[in-house]
């Protein structure tokens, strides 16, 4: 996901930069304003429709990837592993530090004091999923670990002096 986001961002930003460079390089010669306006406004209309269609397509296609399913169902499916998570300044308290691979895990995440951010990282330090840990609320994060191994839990919401040290681990074992 990060690669896709990065590539799309880079390409689109480069298109914008290239457009600006093109216009700046063509800013010296003086031309009548009205024909320029007409030309650019027709580009504007085209751009509007390209963006509108693009946004609708992305919006619809991204709907499936939303991480809110566990939050809004009354019961977890049979076989779901459930782990209660509570954040404190500056440690994580998990009801279990071990889960099985390839079976859904639902993390019931809350906080015992300030706001924290519960984030799961793999062994190569890639962020896999996250939710906020907020006092008085339970955020339910569902994730399926594909590979056995040791995964890191990092805090992603600033919570005071040792925020960056608020690290824990989850052991994912084979089925």
């Amino acid at each position, binding site marked *: 996901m990060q690669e896709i986001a990065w590539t799309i961002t880079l390409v689109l930003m480069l298109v*914008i930069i290239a457009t600006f460079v093109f216009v*700046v390089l063509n800013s010296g010669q003086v031309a009548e304003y009205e024909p320029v306006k007409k030309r650019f406004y027709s580009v504007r209309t085209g751009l509007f429709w390209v963006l509108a269609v693009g946004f609708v397509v992305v919006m619809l296609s991204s709907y499936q990837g939303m991480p809110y399913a566990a939050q809004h169902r009354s019961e977890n499916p049979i076989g779901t592993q459930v782990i209660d998570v509570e954040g404190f300044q500056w440690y994580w308290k998990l009801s279990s530090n071990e889960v099985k691979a390839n079976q859904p895990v639902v993390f019931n995440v809350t906080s015992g004091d300030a706001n924290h951010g519960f984030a799961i990282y793999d062994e190569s330090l890639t962020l896999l999923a996250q939710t906020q840990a907020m006092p008085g609320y339970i955020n339910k994060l569902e994730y399926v670990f594909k590979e056995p191994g040791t995964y890191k839990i990092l805090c992603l919401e600033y919570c*005071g002096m040792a925020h960056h040290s608020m690290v824990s681990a989850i052991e994912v074992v084979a089925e």
Partner: protein
Amino acid sequence: MSSSISVIHPNLSAGARKTLLTYLAISAVVFLLMMVFGASMRYEQSEWLGMGPQYFYQIMTAHGIGMIGIVGLAASAVMWFFLSRHVQLSTPILVANLVFFLIGVVLILGAIFIGGFAAAWTFLYPLPAMGKGVWGNHAAASYLVGLLLIGVGFLLLYLDTARGIMKKYGNLGKALGWPQLFFNSQDEAPPSAVIASTMVLIVNIAGIAAGAVVLVLSLVNLYMPSYELDPLLVKNLIYFFGHVFINAAIYQAVIAVYEILPLYTNRPWKPTKVFILSWTLSTLMVMSVYPHHLLMDFAMPKWALIMGQIISYMSGFPVLVVTAIGALTLIYRSGIKWDVTSRLLILSMLGWACGVIPAIVDGTISVNNVMHNTLWVPGHFHIYLLLGLLPMLFGFMYYLVQSNGNKVGAVDDVAFWFYLVGGMGFVTMFLLSGKESIPRRWAAHLSEWVPYDRIASVFATLVVIGALVFAYRFLTRLSRINIATS
């Protein structure tokens, strides 16, 4: 080439002139100081400084709130300068805002650097009351009261703006150009400065009111812990206030682009129906998009989060389709006069347009799930602010400095390129670090992340050098600024 650019204000009193220049002089100094703070955070993450987490988080808090406050101040000066050409505004209120601002700044600086307060600019409940011995309740209260006073000053300013606009145009709808947009009125639409200022006062009065509510609630909780707040409600209010205020700063500063760029291209940039529509839509979207800051708060109503994504996407339209294209239309084959002012203003358009892309990407819920609170986030807003907003503000300062025949040297041109290259590299490293999942707001980084920090630090240094020249030039030329009356 710049000698033909005239700086005209037909009715700027000596008091207003002095106050506006004081706004901008303070802004130039604070921009620089806050940039040094920002760069020092990257140096610390690069393992070059060794300041430790306590100073890091204090500086992080000061950098965040300092930048938000000072761009608000500088942008309000831009708005006031251009709006007061069309509408009578109160100079005493302009002075009062500055006084409130300075008192607030003293309280905030005291909270942070004497009281040790370091709950980030966001002061998310209940962190201000949980300093764990690093800061106490009085320090937190000093921060909250300081922010409240700054809010009071700005509220007075925007209420006065509303008074002045309504006195001339009758109501806010007319000032937004609605008769031309909805009723086909053949009367000339209000100037862009009036339309933009009207949008800003609407959103900022709402935003500041929400901020004031949450500040007072947090203050009560500090000294009466039994009076508990709803953390999710507080977070909603804080992000509504924060999002609106920082966006309103851009919408005020862009008035400089609308007003100054036509002078350089000899082409008019008059409000069209599309322009008016985009400002009306922006008024609504700036106030309703803030849930995109809460996409990882799963307890939020799902419709609000989806709305956050949709409006994030829609917010890109006015910037990309109207303002950026409008600026490019103005420039293309115009014979534009090139100097530091025009370069900075065009850079600002580029920065604002580019910032839309990573913002929209991060506003996509499934992406946010792996990007939220990584360095991607400061990446996207530094594109808006470092490459969009600040070039508008520095551009306005150079417009005044180069007023009516005054010239600057080659060092300013070099500074521009330092700023441009440094800024682009700096924000790209943020985005790249976000792609690598590096968290934001971490005082110490894992060894795998340090190389990214070091490259970013080099770029940050270039930005600071560029900004140092900009600030120096403005401060040393203050007395020579020449604003003609006709």
